[in-house]
């Protein structure tokens, strides 16, 4: 598993918000990406998943079946290869219930054509089981209804990505808007999947104790550039990180 970007830049007007010589994700199990507000973390993730077009640079993804060049691909093609990201700001499908939202994400696009009008069952037992298992693992107000609070919407956003079974999973601030105990449940579930070899994960966070606890490897981004990579211990004791971020 290897997601690599070279000479990746993104400028809005003349203002360059990402400028990275080289970065590689996916070689560690659970990686962190940290950096001050406005460092360009979300922009970088948008670039990697092709939701944002880069100003310049190349992105390649290898999930074990050859190297895919991501530059010419659309965002849905990137997702189908197995690179999926959660959203920092709440996103959702307002007309879909929690379960329908998850069923949608679990359904392979080839099963959603015109022929599906005449299918006997809308969703297979396999998908129903996966959805029920995920929904019942968390304390939703109404498991058969809609996501009520911002927190529930954020949780659905994460579960929706998980049920789509990404190979490389990018999480943009999973703790923002989620209660602490839910965050832990999510991160434990993610860590379990990583340990099982189902996926690799990159998580963007401002909650540093969480990063130190869960991550095997951490990248530090500041003003659009990766300034340091290393194990949590190395990053914690790095002078540049301390100066630029931890306010010491």
């Amino acid at each position: 598993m290897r997601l690599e970007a070279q000479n990746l830049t993104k400028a809005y007007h003349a203002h360059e918000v990402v400028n990275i010589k080289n970065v590689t994700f996916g070689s560690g199990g659970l990686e962190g990406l940290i950096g001050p507000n406005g460092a360009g973390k979300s922009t970088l993730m948008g670039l990697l998943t092709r939701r944002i077009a880069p100003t310049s640079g190349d992105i390649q993804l290898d999930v074990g079946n050859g190297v895919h060049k991501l530059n010419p691909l659309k965002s849905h093609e990137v997702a189908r290869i197995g690179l999926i990201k959660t959203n920092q700001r709440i996103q959702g499908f307002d007309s879909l219930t929690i379960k329908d939202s998850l069923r949608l994400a679990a359904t392979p696009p080839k099963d959603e054509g015109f022929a599906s009008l005449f299918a006997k069952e809308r969703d297979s037992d396999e998908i129903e089981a996966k959805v029920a298992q995920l929904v019942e693992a968390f304390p939703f107000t109404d498991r058969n209804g809609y996501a009520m609070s911002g927190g529930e919407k954020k949780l659905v956003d994460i579960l929706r990505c998980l049920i789509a079974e990404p190979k490389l999973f990018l999480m943009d601030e999973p703790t923002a808007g989620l209660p602490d105990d839910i965050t832990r449940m999510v991160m434990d579930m993610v860590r379990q999947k990583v340990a099982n070899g189902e996926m690799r994960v990159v998580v963007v966070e401002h909650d540093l104790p969480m990063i130190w606890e869960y991550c095997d490897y951490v990248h530090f981004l500041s003003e659009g550039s990766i300034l340091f990579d290393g194990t949590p211990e190395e990053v914690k004791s790095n002078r540049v990180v301390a100066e630029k971020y931890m306010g010491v």
Partner: protein
Amino acid sequence: MDYLIFSFSLMLVYIGLAQLLHIQFGMAGIPNFGVVGFWGLGLYGTGVLYLTYDVPLFIAIAMASLLSAAAGYVLALLVLQRSGQAVLAATLALSAIIATLIVSEKDITGGVQGLGTIKFPFGDMDGRNIVFMVFILIVVIALVWLSAKLRDSRMGRQLVAIRDNEELAASLGKNTASTKRWVFAVTCGMMGVLGGMSAPLHQFLVPYQLAPSLTFAVWIALVLGGKGHNLGATVGVFVTFGLFDILIETYAPVPAEQAILLPNFKLFCYGLVLIMIIMFRPRGMLGEDKPRVRARPAQAQGVPRET
């Protein structure tokens, strides 16, 4: 009597068009303001094929609706990934272009002088206009049934997701552009079928029939009835076209001097009701309906945790 059958047949065509708009706009969120154009391609396509090339009526309808579908597909390629306003303007413009071409290409279409006569199928049979009305009825019922199937299907769920948040749907691996394009092309093709079936109803085709008022009538009906409800189109057309164009115009004892005011009065009422609906019941008379899917017992218990 013949006039009443004509009016009912036309009303069924309107219901069919509104039903297709329910799929395009209500489900997929595509604001098609060129309904009359896709319908008109079917109408004139059928007329030209039938009269000039002696193609049997039903084959002419099928061929003409392929033309509508192709126009929908190409337009979708060009504009469907742009903003809603762009789609609105482009579809409206396409229907205006089609209407203009039909006036200007008079060698093919007969121009302003028109094109006729397109006869009902079934030869000299008595009451073939009634048989044809029943035929339209069957087609329209099939459309309503199909769009209920769509609502309850995986494809319908994907359409709703695309309408709600297309970028998010794409980020989950859905090829949103292709789904929208095909749904749009197929439904535009079906608008063409309804156009083709309108050819023997009108018998004589004139460019005036391609005026945008048809598009607006269908939109008003759908918004009134409920764009997100499978029966919204039917109810909407009943309370607009059915009530005004059939009941009042045919049966209301309006003195001749005032009768000329009726169309204006109709537009006034449409406008008033539309404003009331938008203010007090923005989802239309019927509101929205949800997919009907057989409830399944929760299955999480006993399912081994994925490892």
